């Protein structure tokens, strides 16, 4: 990728510009490579149904069928799937934060009996994804009488994302000097005041990373929802959307129209928090 062999010090202006152009070229190619599948998703979502059975397939829709994006809402309960996904992801994120914030803060600030054991437990549970335990989760939910409820999905998503959030936040809180809070104490703030007015605002990159990570993971969770839910009105997008393509029907255009409806808000969210994400990962997981 590099265009020069001369030592840095003698680098003239021209090769530096060439280097920039080459980097930009590579960068844009990479960007395109990452977007190709989603562009294909977009074009497929706009194809009329009969064009989908053509062989070989077409690159672009012959007739741009924007109505697919309208029809998809009545072809399946997309609105319900969206609502379920949103409820589960938002509730799971809240529960995760409510549990992770105090735990991460306390372990970062205090040495106490059992601190090591707790951090070890967090580390170990980080190893388990719902996929590995799905049989156990299913049996547990049967025992708790929680099958086919949103509560089961919220609990599972919250619990399995908790370890990562605790680690990110723990790293972040540890990186903030204690003196800042002590200054706030002197100014008459209580511990809670110091936490909410001093520490939390500085920790925003870590908190945002934790929120985004949990929300996305819950939004994308598939296997537990597939196993535990049965009623159509308790299925999230991930389980509902594939039902557009079964052995009896193949509405690929609706499948991808619904997928785009589900993807675009999340992508926009990600673009907004991109800066925070890098900051959060830097301080939290790597330090």
């Amino acid at each position, binding site marked *: 990728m*590099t265009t020069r062999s001369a030592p840095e010090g003698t680098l003239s202006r021209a090769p530096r510009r060439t280097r920039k152009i080459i980097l930009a070229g590579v960068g844009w190619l990479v960007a395109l490579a990452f977007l190709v599948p989603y562009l294909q998703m977009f074009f497929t979502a706009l194809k009329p149904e009969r064009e989908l059975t053509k062989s070989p397939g077409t690159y672009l829709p012959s007739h741009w069928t924007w109505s697919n994006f309208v029809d998809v809402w009545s072809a399946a309960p997309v609105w319900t799937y969206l609502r379920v996904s949103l409820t589960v992801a938002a509730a799971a994120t809240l529960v995760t934060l409510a549990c992770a914030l*105090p*735990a991460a*803060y306390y372990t970062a600030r205090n040495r106490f009996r*059992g601190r090591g054991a707790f951090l070890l437990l967090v*580390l170990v549970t980080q190893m388990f994804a719902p996929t590995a335990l799905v049989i156990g989760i299913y049996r*547990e939910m049967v025992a708790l009488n929680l099958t086919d409820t949103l509560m089961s999905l919220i609990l599972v998503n919250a619990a399995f994302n908790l370890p990562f959030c605790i680690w990110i936040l723990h790293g972040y809180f540890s990186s903030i000097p204690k003196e800042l809070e002590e200054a706030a104490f002197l100014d008459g703030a209580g511990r809670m005041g110091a936490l909410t007015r001093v520490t939390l605002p500085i920790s925003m990159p870590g908190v945002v990373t934790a929120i985004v990570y949990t929300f996305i993971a819950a939004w994308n969770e598939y296997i537990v929802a597939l196993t535990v839910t049965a009623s159509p009105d308790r299925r999230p997008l991930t389980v509902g959307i594939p039902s557009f393509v079964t052995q009896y029907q193949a509405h690929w255009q609706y499948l991808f129209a619904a997928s785009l409806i589900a993807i675009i808000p999340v992508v926009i969210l*990600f673009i907004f928090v*991109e800066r925070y994400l890098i900051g959060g990962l830097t301080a939290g*997981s790597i330090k």
Partner: protein
Amino acid sequence: MQDLKAKERGAVTSPAPRPSLAQRIGRALTPLLWLGPALVLITVVVLWPVIEMVRTSLQKISSSGVTLGYRGGGNYTDLFGEDDLIPVVLRTLLWVGGIVIVTMVLSLALGQLLNARFPGRRVVRWAVIVPWAASVLMTALIWKWMLDNYSGIVNRVLLDLHLIDKPVNWLAHPTQAMFWMMWVAVFVSLPFTSFVILAGLQTIPGDVYEAARVDGAGHVRTYFGITLPLLRPAILIASIINVINVFNSFPIIWAMTGGGPGHKTDTTTTYMYKLAFYDQNVGESGAMAVVNFILILVMVLLYLRAARWREEVR
């Protein structure tokens, strides 16, 4: 709770008189207030299924899900008697190892690119994020569609480039299907990994490079002598999180081949799922889950070693 905390802080700075029993109990309970919710959530939702899973693996369970009593090691005997088990486990190791190695190598390059200055860098970063934001399942479905033997775009491109002379049914052949699914798994792993590497690159102070330049180190030497060693924590974290995620990347296989044809593209997780919900053999599936679990535990040990190494640095 507040004054308790104040006392605790006071105790650190001055040799306070021996605390009373009530104070000692209070101090012992304070952590529970802060850690309690997390502990409850982890215990109930993560540890309970582990126990439930082990119990299941020892039980005889009817196809309708009713427990018919203990079966001892019978489920394990059945599982180890399956002809598919060894290939499935080996395939899982190939799946995890192959994907993680390729992801790490590509992410090192991508992280470097995203860290370099060039016009439009932010847009490129946004594009690289997209597969992370899009769900794995939906990404797998679009690849399945692109690989469709009849009207998929992959065949169309290859036909137009005259690389093949008739459409190929990619996902019907185990080897080709595995190749494509591993590619999809790499594709969805790249964003998170590249961002962790990028975050790692940003923690390297510029004066380190300054010094290397003064010493006359070339690009290659600087990269292998400075960048890579300083990236070690990031590489470690990223690769371990990847091992866990890839081990559990059920949706890709489930959406693209369903583990088929037969069990030819199954990994331990899809195999486990089929045993329980297709073959209605919950007990044997529990045994598979335990075996799967032990495989992951081996990785826990690797992670713990890494974590200890991390504390050493701090």
